[in-house]
């Protein structure tokens, strides 16, 4: 069934959250993602599905409201853009430490500092290597279309509850702001309290006579216990690496040179592949869909077949480090990308491939 609509990426996230049966959204305005909160306030899901929507006093409060809601086993999310994500990283660390499922959306803009409000991909390190303090990881999903913005909301929630861990959608101002057609799923009912307690017996829903009290904390003053806890977290991250890797191969079968790009840059590289192929260059694109876990195995496999990789990101080169680690020293790996809110064109990307990799 579903419903076909023309929507902005940000709006698709908001609508998909309602339809996924989310229990609550807590957020704070920041460009270029304010449409998520605006759309929800306009739609008033609290009058239809019963989903709570609240504008918090800061990103710090938003992420801690998410912590409070997630601790009750509720399906809760927040969204922000780069400077706001920096403020949320304390909360992300607590959420990961306390093993709480939730969904975070980062509609990235150019940094550092207040930077710019234009699109960028310069928060890759923050998203995939932790960001907050302590050893932790999140499943990081990178949509490259408005359709995927909608689809990854439910996927993000599913993975969050599967692993009892925050999931992050890492997108950017370009996909957040652009309009495309999107097939929306039918409305899923929000879970009843009975269903919630069955799925999340650990949740703080009030201590009943039939169970011990539930405590949500990330504190273990005894280091021996904390070490055990961190090793338990590691086992989850290892499981993510073996079970959750997602990627898309575009024209890779006969390719001699491969673009590696996610999100907006993948869209641009897809065009560059076509332009290159028209010139007789055997180009392909590997698009990581999960940035953590990263498709290391697929890159390793491709490195036996091709002559070089160009990592294209709107950053000074962050994902390129993961590409280099996956490929090793056997193949040439370079980075190309515009920064500070500037977007590379397909021609620029193709030229970079020709000069840095093919002729370099």
């Amino acid at each position, binding site marked *: 069934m579903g419903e076909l609509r023309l929507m902005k990426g940000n709006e698709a996230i908001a609508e998909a959250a309602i339809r996924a049966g989310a*229990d*609550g959204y*807590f957020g704070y305005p920041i460009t270029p993602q304010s449409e998520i909160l605006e759309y929800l306030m306009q739609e008033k899901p609290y009058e239809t599905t019963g989903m*709570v929507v*609240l504008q*918090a*006093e*800061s990103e*710090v*409060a*938003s992420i*801690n*409201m*998410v*912590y*409070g*809601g997630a*601790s*009750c086993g*509720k399906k*809760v999310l927040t969204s922000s853009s780069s400077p706001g994500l920096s403020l949320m990283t*304390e*909360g992300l660390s*607590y959420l990961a430490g*306390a093993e709480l499922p939730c969904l975070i959306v980062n509609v990235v803009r150019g940094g550092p500092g207040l930077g710019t409000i234009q699109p960028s991909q310069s928060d890759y390190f923050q998203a995939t290597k932790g960001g907050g303090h302590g050893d932790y990881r999140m499943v990081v999903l990178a949509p490259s279309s408005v359709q995927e913005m909608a689809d990854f909301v439910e996927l993000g929630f599913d993975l969050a509850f599967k692993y009892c861990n925050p999931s992050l959608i890492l997108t950017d101002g370009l996909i957040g702001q652009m309009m495309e057609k999107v097939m929306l799923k039918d409305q899923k009912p929000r879970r009843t309290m009975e269903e919630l307690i069955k799925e999340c017996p650990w949740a*703080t*829903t*009030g*201590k*009943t*006579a039939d169970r011990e*009290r*539930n*405590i*949500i*904390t*990330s*504190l273990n003053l005894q280091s021996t216990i904390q070490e055990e806890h961190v090793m338990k977290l590691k086992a989850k991250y290892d499981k993510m690496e073996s079970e959750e890797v997602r990627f898309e191969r575009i024209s890779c079968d006969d390719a001699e040179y491969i673009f590696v790009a996610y999100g907006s840059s993948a869209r641009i590289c897809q065009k560059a592949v076509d332009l290159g192929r028209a010139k007789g260059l055997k180009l392909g694109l590997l698009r990581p869909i999960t940035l953590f876990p990263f498709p290391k195995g697929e890159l390793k496999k491709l490195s036996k077949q091709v002559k070089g990789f160009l990592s294209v990101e709107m950053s000074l080169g962050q994902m390129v480090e993961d590409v280099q680690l996956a490929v090793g020293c056997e193949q040439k790996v370079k980075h190309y990308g515009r920064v500070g809110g500037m977007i590379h064109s397909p021609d620029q990307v193709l030229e970079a491939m020709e000069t840095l990799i093919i002729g370099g």
Partner: protein
Amino acid sequence: MAKQQIFNQEIIHPDNLVYKKTGLLTEKALSYCPGCGHGTAHRLVMEVIEEMGIQSETVGVAPVGCSVLAYEFMDIDMQQAAHGRAPALATAIKRLMPEKFVFTYQGDGDLAAIGTAETLHACNRGENITIIFVNNGIYGMTGGQMAPTTLPGMRASTCPYGRDVEIMGNPLKINELIAQLPGVYFATRQAVHKPANVRRTKKALRMAFENQKLGKGVSFVEIVSNCNSGWKMTATDANVWMEENMFPFYPLGDIKVDGEMIKK
């Protein structure tokens, strides 16, 4: 001989039992310093929850500070918040489960320094929650540093020559501040160092939870307490010092009742 008088075995039998620990405090020994008011405050909160019969409907939020481990002692579902963020957690818990009773238990550094924004805005939104605020004028857990509530001239490890208000600013009377907000229905300041004060505090806590039952908005119960370790005094000296110095600056009594400011 004195010991025999206190533990007169002949009168210790069930018929003479006049006091027992509430069943909602766990068997875990309190981690607080001997003489500290936190133990009494914990007991009163749990007694009120037990007497109202709302154990299964209550979710508490513990802070960062001396009471970071409150969840070890309270036999209810609890969450432990990042430093200062308890009112944000409580906001979400209450909004997502309006039928539950939700309270935060916070110290002065947590509530009135790092968490000022969360405190103020939860109060301003009129969240239907209970905030329990233990004010001892010092950071106890980290070893006696200056708090937002440290008195002028009072010594702490980060103001070893006494709080100089010219340099360090004035202590913050956050209760008087938040009481001005329409979202706050009940604001009171109590103590737990003497039996009469203990009784008054318990009455205030009961009123705070009853207000929540009626959906009235924020009930804010401040408990001015001692920190004999941080103040570097004996427990009895600390209580005398508290009466002579803390109470004049933080006067006990109701500040706002049933949404109306109390005229002084």
